[in-house]
């Protein structure tokens, strides 16, 4: 039979950690399915806007979306709980564990309503905040003005007395060097370093705790149902292969960056366990508020809280 071609899109670029992983995912699917499924992974949002990739797949313009649920919280607030549980988990493994423990099936109840199927997720290390002023613990957040992505994150930081400013990322560099903002939330330590944030910001929270975006691999539901069991399993197995690789690679890159940054005089702020827990508590109030915004959000929230309590992440 002819191989099934599938057009996927990611917002990541081909040379980034996640972009490379997704290209490898495409190769692995081909290998595992004996060449019967051929995924074309379009990088850098070259076909549609990142915000539109999900809807474009559900409409059949493309076949799959490899961005993240954080882009579609406007479609249903529940997607926030599948995009980034801000301040919720300390390691990618914990969060992947939630998906194994029933999270994936719960997610698919939501995804199927949008004619999409969530095949699986992978997650890099927690992100680091960058700051021009010390950020040693939760008290330093009071009055700390920083560039924040809009949504749940700004709500949490506002609660803690910080002043989140929503501005285009391109403005961050001048804004930080002139003191308009004292910091920025961009990405992991290694990526922030590459972006040049630490040319200006001399403080970074590491290991990170506030944000850990979930990379989802979702496919048009009809296209998914048209695949046979072997092909479906090939995609699931391919994600299972890349997920631990991404964690290992992200850790390695962060550690290298941490070493170089320390040598370059950047202070790495390792928050105490009490401060991390205090941040999580503040975040929990905001999660609870989001849970009231749709029934699906409530279901996701309850499942996360139950899992966190079961595993001692929350007490």
């Amino acid at each position, binding site marked *: 039979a002819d191989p099934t071609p599938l057009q996927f899109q990611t917002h990541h670029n081909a040379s980034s950690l996640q972009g490379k992983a997704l290209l490898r995912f495409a190769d692995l699917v081909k290998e595992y399915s004996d060449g019967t499924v051929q995924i074309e992974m379009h990088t850098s949002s070259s076909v549609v806007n990142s915000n539109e990739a999900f*809807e474009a797949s559900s409409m059949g313009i493309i076949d799959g979306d490899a961005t993240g649920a954080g882009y579609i919280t406007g*479609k249903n607030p529940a997607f926030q709980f599948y995009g980034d549980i801000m301040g919720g988990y300390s390691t990618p493994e914990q969060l992947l564990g939630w998906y194994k423990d029933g999270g994936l099936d719960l997610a698919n109840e939501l995804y199927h309503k949008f004619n999409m199927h969530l095949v699986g997720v992978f997650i890099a290390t927690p992100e680091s905040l960058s700051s021009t002023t010390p950020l040693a613990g939760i008290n330093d957040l009071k009055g700390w003005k920083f560039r924040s992505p809009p*949504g749940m994150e700004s*709500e949490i930081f506002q609660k803690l007395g910080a002043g989140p400013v929503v501005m285009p990322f391109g403005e961050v560099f001048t804004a930080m060097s002139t003191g308009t903002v004292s910091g920025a939330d961009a990405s992991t330590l290694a990526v922030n370093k590459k972006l040049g944030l630490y040319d200006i910001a001399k403080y970074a929270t590491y290991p990170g705790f506030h944000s850990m975006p979930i990379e989802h691999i979702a496919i048009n539901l009809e296209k998914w149902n048209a695949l046979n069991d072997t092909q479906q399993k090939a995609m699931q197995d391919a994600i299972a292969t890349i997920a631990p690789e991404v964690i290992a690679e992200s850790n390695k890159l962060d550690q290298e960056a941490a070493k170089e940054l320390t040598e370059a005089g950047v202070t790495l702020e390792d928050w105490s366990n009490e401060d991390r827990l205090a941040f999580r508590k503040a975040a929990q109030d905001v999660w609870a508020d989001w849970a009231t915004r749709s029934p699906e959000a409530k279901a996701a929230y309850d499942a996360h809280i139950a899992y966190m309590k079961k595993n001692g992440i929350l007490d």
Partner: protein
Amino acid sequence: MQATPKRVRSFQFVVALFSLLLLIIVGVTFYEVIARYIFRTPTIWANELALWLSAILFLAAGLYAMQRDQHLRITVLYDASPAWLQRIFDLITLACCLTFCLGIAWFGAPSSWQSLMNWEPFGTAWNPPIPATVKPLIVLTTGLMALYGIINCVKRFRGIPADTAESVTEDNRVD
């Protein structure tokens, strides 16, 4: 200009009114910068409101340029051609215009309708219904642009020049 039906001209005036959005955007920008620096309380809505209005402005702008038949053309061959050939080119132009505009309008309509029915918000801090409004407006705008494509083509066949007199005289830039 006399040859243009009055109803069409007055609708052009309605579309031109959308240019006032620019003044609102300027006002919103001033408010945001003053709120940020003088009152130390940046708004969550100013940038998103400006973005929303600008999306509407961009659509109205495309329609306005279409009403005035001013969309960017390379006219080397067209200008050098005899009238009968120009009419064939006009038909090709019309075909391209209808393909693009109706392609967008017809195939964009179902998902736009869904966004409108669900009153889909933008998913940001202030969360305005940008998808719910802008997506259907694109369908409406391109639909109207297709209509004006036909009107412009008919005008050319009837030998009525494009509605550009105003733009030439208003500026008075060659003195």
